[in-house]
């Protein structure tokens, strides 16, 4: 082989490499149903807001693709006693203005979000924390009010903000011009239109896969799909199952979906109306064919569940039997309760699929009850659902996620006596879930939740219908594995030509 030939071949290889390099995608465009409400990560917690700001900020801890809690800004941690935990803070992390991230910033972030003056709607997720202090530049000591097993799961959602910058510019300015230590920095926020992010070259963990990311606010799903098909968007959030086919039919697009921790459930009022009788509640549980719901209405983007919970949730158990579809048994129970033809009000809001609500209504009517749907906007719906039992309707639909993947965030608020969602009271159940939230022994907690789920099965104050899937539409070249907690980390994505 002549030297000349080799040099030509080498030149060709290099040419190839350089064109491949030139082809890497510069800007990733993501269509969300709405704009961020706030980009201050300590204020609003809703999917559109955190889809954006979690790319600007790092969290104290995070979850890997398998859902395990792993280090991020904290490199390790250890319990000093049941109520005190010490975090080792990673060195070499910088904020996007070049300043160093230290234990002071971490302690400040925790104390800021639990400070009532900030009026953070997220306070409830962190209110078990008493205080945090930096005991050295790399160590933060955190104290909880009582032993709190869900602490780490909640800290996955804690964004670390820069103390010096926040104190300098103030809360209002920080919300408009946020600055974090995450892989992307905010370049321009056109409120209500789009947020433009640019890769932070000094990011400690990985090289951000795209130089720019644009999050657009596109409320109508048909428009988001049209954007995807025409290449105006590379990734779109929240594709309803009945529209997924239209995305799949497009040669440049694909559907990315993942089972989430979110569970679709039916609330049954155990304290008022016809559903006060446990036989009526059990009858409704037997009357609903959740397998048919998942197949016909969710088109497979969901999985039937046996309890109000799902696999990614700590405390979920497969050992408790779900209710099988048995309309004959349901009719018998209704007859035994003397509830034939009893009126049951079914609360819902436009946030939930009307088809699903009507299908459930039909199934329950078929076994002898008289279900009437009453639909109101979300604010009114919540007011009634969380209010006085007598006015809370007999049935209501819900899609629950605490974004903490722990049963304490699901069945405690839903069914514990005195909780705003609970129209149900059982002392034995209360004792179990109370105990499970103040002990740290994981095996013991699992056992407690198993017993709690067994009681819920018997009493049916709520009925798990299905585990919801998150459904995204994406360009075929986008490689991304969505996660169970509905997070959208751009650093997990890549582009393949």
């Amino acid at each position: 082989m002549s030297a000349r030939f080799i040099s030509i071949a080498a030149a060709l290889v290099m040419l190839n490499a350089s064109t491949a390099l030139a082809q890497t995608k510069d800007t990733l465009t993501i269509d969300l149903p709405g704009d961020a409400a706030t980009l201050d990560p300590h204020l609003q917690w809703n999917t559109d807001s955190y889809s954006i700001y979690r790319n600007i900020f790092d969290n104290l801890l995070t979850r890997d693709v398998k859902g395990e809690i792993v280090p991020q800004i904290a490199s390790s941690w250890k319990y000093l006693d049941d109520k005190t935990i010490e975090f080792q803070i990673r060195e070499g992390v910088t904020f996007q203005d070049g300043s160093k991230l230290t234990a002071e910033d971490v302690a400040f972030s925790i104390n800021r979000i639990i400070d009532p003056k900030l009026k953070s709607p997220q306070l409830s997720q962190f209110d078990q924390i008493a205080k945090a202090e930096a005991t050295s530049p790399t160590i933060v000591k955190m104290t909880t009010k009582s032993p709190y097993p869900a602490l780490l799961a909640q800290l996955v959602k804690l964004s670390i903000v820069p103390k010096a910058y926040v104190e300098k510019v103030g809360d209002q300015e920080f919300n408009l011009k946020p600055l974090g230590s995450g892989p992307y920095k905010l370049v321009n926020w056109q409120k209500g239109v789009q947020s433009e992010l640019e890769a932070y070259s000094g990011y400690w963990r990985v090289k951000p896969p795209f130089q720019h990311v644009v999050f657009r606010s596109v409320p109508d799903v048909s428009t988001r799909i049209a954007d995807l098909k025409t290449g105006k968007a590379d990734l779109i959030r929240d594709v309803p199952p009945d529209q997924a086919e239209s995305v799949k039919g497009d040669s440049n697009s694909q559907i990315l979906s993942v089972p989430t921790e979110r569970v679709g459930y039916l609330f049954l009022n155990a304290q008022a109306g016809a559903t006060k009788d446990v036989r009526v509640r059990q009858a409704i549980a037997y009357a609903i064919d959740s397998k048919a719901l998942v197949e016909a209405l969710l088109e497979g983007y969901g999985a039937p569940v046996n309890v109000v919970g799902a696999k990614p949730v700590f405390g979920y158990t497969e050992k408790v039997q779900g209710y099988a579809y048995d309309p004959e048994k349901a009719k018998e129970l209704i007859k035994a309760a003397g509830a034939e033809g009893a009126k049951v009000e079914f609360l819902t809001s436009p946030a939930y699929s009307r088809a699903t609500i009507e299908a459930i209504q039909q199934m329950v009517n078929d076994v002898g009850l008289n279900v009437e749907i009453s639909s109101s906007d979300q604010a009114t719906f919540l007011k009634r659902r969380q209010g006085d039992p007598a006015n809370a309707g007999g049935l209501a639909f819900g899609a629950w996620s605490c974004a903490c993947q722990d049963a304490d965030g699901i069945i405690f608020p839903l069914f514990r006596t005195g909780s705003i969602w609970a129209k149900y009271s059982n002392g034995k159940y209360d004792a179990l879930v109370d105990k499970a939230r103040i002990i740290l022994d994981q095996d013991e907690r699992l056992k407690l939740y198993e017993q709690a789920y067994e009681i819920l099965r018997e009493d049916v104050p709520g009925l798990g219908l299905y585990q919801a899937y998150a459904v995204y539409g994406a360009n075929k070249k986008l490689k991304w594995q969505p996660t169970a907690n509905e997070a959208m980390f751009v650093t997990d994505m890549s582009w393949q030509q």
Partner: protein
Amino acid sequence: MVRYAAERLIQAIIAIFGVLTIVFVVMHLSGDPTLLLVPQDASAEMIAQLRQQLGFDRPIWVQYLDYLRGLAHFDFGISVVQRVPAADIVASRVPYTVMLASGALLVAIGMGIPAGIVMATRRGGWLERLLTAIVVTGQSVPTFLSGIVLIFVFGVTLRWLPTSGSGDFVSLIMPSIALGALSMSTFARMTRISIIDELGKDYVRAGRARGLSLSAVVFRHVLRNAAIPVITIAALEIGNLLAGAVIVETVFAWPGIGQLAIQSIQSRDFLVVQVIVLLISFVYVMTSVLADLVYAIVDPRIRMAR
């Protein structure tokens, strides 16, 4: 004339004040934003605490007086959802709404008036039948359908126009057509009727008798006389176009105040809703006051009758 204008202005202020009060009461009675702000697993105490921090636990009349006090100082308050002054949020959306309303008005007038002229002067012809079909379609197809059809045809299939967005002029074309279609039909019908009305009058017959062609009569004389009812419609349509774009703005992801209004109502972001209501009622009342004043200036008979 001055006294007339002053009277109309005072009436206008009372009307706006009434609208503000009604909206304030209705919004507050139908639930407060606290429930929508907190995570699902928030406890009753946490919700009560946030409600108190945000001031929604106070009696409604205290909140109302507080609101009026702010208003008197041109302080519209801070959005509880976005934590930004409510007036700033609305102000940032106004240019988009004005752009879209102008585009739609251009479509409505630019297509509606010529169509009306043709329909009035070519009665019974195939062209009239075709235009009638278009006008009827324009006024009967709901915008959520026409919007999606436009996106599908010109955005997805032909790829001539962007499917959504607000950054450049071409993005304005489809939303303007979707929003302007209904007004276009109104203009076409009004123009047609006024011209037909005028065509039956003596001066037209006289003009034709002197040998003028139909088009010469129409363009030189009829149009000017037929214009007054059309101007009235235009004043009403401007109000409609500014306030009535909720669906079009949602379908095309156009960030105007219609989209903002619906989102703010859903999230019970009271203060933002109040600013929008204030703005829209102001525009409505002012266009009707202005229209009245313009008549008085344009038509001496109206001025004299006062």
